[in-house]
């Protein structure tokens, strides 16, 4: 694996400092009558990330995670607020920041699928100014690290989803960045590949990289992150270690119901029950799972049975709260 360059000693001593970041997009509609509307993507986001830290940014779709990342990576200029990345101002020192960061956006796009993995990486190495003497060696090392060397000369369009994701990671590391932004790196991956990807992320932190990770999977944030910020409607509503966040729901327990034939109407009835803090429902075709967060614990079981009297109940468990439960409480409060 490539050698880690000496860490830059920033003025603040932090890898990232975001202060009251705000991003408003102006959208214009109509040909003759131009209707202007403002979309507030990020309202007020402040946080900092230490060197060598794996920092998580979690929140529902449209909460402002990706816009925050795009401001920090210089792709967007904040409407107001200020950010420094590796000690550099993200509005003025654009090139210096870009030279030192890596970004991996989730999904299958973002690669030239008609050409090989080697051609993709060589191209980005040139765009990042990697010296020719280092370039080919680094491309080989990264493809070996990601387990793609055997297929390195094949067109990327013939790769599986997991292989493409590993190639994304390799591309994000092509300039040997000090700081890596990973935007939902395991989205859409099958469990085996997702586990492998998380293992690679851990290895990167062990090698001294700083990582800012966004994810929808709370267990992933719990497993990987030193600290997690929960973002909702463009604002950070909580920032703590995973165990610190769990304290938000310490006084509560989670009643998990497995069943069949549960309807949306019944889920809505649970939400209206006194003492219920949040309800999440996965109403799949074969198996349905309800998670009810409540301080009432086992006392709620009789009410559950009453509401679901027309459905089939396979199992009811009382569980300790997880980071996901804390997250649900924070984003639904």
């Amino acid at each position, binding site marked *: 694996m490539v050698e880690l360059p000496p860490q830059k000693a920033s003025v603040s001593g932090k890898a990232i400092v975001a202060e009251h970041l705000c991003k408003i997009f102006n959208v214009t509609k109509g040909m003759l009558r131009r209707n202007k509307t403002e979309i507030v993507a990020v309202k007020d986001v402040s946080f900092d990330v230490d060197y060598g830290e794996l920092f998580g940014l979690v929140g529902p779709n449209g909460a402002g995670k990706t816009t925050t990342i795009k401001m920090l990576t210089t*792709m967007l200029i904040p409407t107001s607020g200020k950010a420094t990345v590796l000690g550099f101002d993200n509005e003025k020192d654009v090139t210096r920041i870009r030279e030192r960061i890596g*970004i991996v*956006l989730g999904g299958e796009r973002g690669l030239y699928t008609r050409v090989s993995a080697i051609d993709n990486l060589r191209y*980005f190495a*040139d765009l990042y100014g990697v010296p020719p003497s280092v370039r080919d060696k680094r491309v080989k090392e990264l493809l070996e690290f990601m387990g793609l060397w055997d297929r390195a000369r094949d067109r990327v369009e013939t790769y599986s989803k997991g292989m493409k994701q590993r190639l994304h990671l390799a591309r994000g590391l092509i300039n040997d960045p000090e700081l890596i932004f990973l935007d939902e790196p395991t989205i859409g991956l099958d469990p085996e590949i997702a586990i492998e990807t998380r293992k690679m992320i851990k290895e990167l932190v062990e090698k001294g990289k700083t990582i800012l990770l966004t994810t929808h999977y709370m267990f992933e944030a719990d497993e990987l992150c030193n600290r997690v910020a929960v973002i909702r409607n463009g604002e950070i509503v909580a920032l703590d270690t995973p165990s610190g966040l769990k304290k938000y729901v310490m006084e509560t327990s989670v009643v998990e119901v497995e069943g069949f034939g549960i309807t949306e109407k019944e889920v809505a009835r649970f939400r209206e029950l006194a003492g219920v803090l949040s309800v999440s429902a996965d109403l799949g075709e074969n198996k349905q799972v309800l998670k009810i967060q409540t301080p009432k614990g086992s006392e709620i079981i009789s009410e559950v049975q009453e509401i679901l009297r027309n459905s089939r109940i396979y199992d009811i468990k009382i569980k300790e709260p997880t980071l996901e439960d804390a997250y649900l409480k924070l984003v639904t409060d």
Partner: protein
Amino acid sequence: MPKTLRVIFSAFRMAMLHWMADPQWIIPNIIAPFVFTTVALTLFKDSTGPFGLYAVLGGGMMGMWGNTLYSSGYAIEFEKWQGTLEEVLVAPSKLLHVITGRAVSNALFGLTNMVAILLIAAFGFRVPLGIADPFLFAVSLILTLLSVSALGLIFASAFVLSRSAQALTNGLETPLYIVSGSMFPIALLPFWVHPAAYVLGPTWGVDAIRLATSSEYASQSFWTGMNVNVAIFLDLTVMLLITLAYAAMAAVLFKVVEKRARIKGTLVEA
């Protein structure tokens, strides 16, 4: 190789790899020129004078011009389709250099268009195409392609700002064929069109190409009465100066529109 040249070369290479990977290029570069040439030669078949030359070179220029301009202007859209635009944007290289590499590659590929037309005319229609000075013809052709590419960069900067820039490229393609004198001499156009023709680099390139091809054209050139080699040199010098102005304009435009795009978020999915 300096960093900037390496970025341009790398973007050029990537574009070439994509051309080779996608056989669709046969349509604009072989089939369309064949149609152009057939129509033009049929129209001019009973005429006297250097009409065959106009038909063949005009058709070739149109095909090459359209191909290069369209592809260069479309370079940003290509990255959007691939989903690679954000990855390219966040790299420390200037977007202008990446697009320049693509534009030069498109220009080079545009050459296949002209070559296809020359071959079709010579072997398919038996048009006598004795090129008076093959070296100056090649030099003029390549420099004209670079000039078209530089114009393409200006169009590309419009794509940074707005998706509707496609309408601009499509709408200007035909007027540019006419104003640059690709199909018939500029002298035939109304006098008020002339200033527009003179600020187009390829107008001078077309003049140089025709001078290098046939001595019959000398009487219609911008430099009538002058030695052909000197006239070609003057044509190419004027074109080079205009092309440099295009490049400088593109550099400024890219800087301005890139900043605006970072404020408005037109290039990224938030």
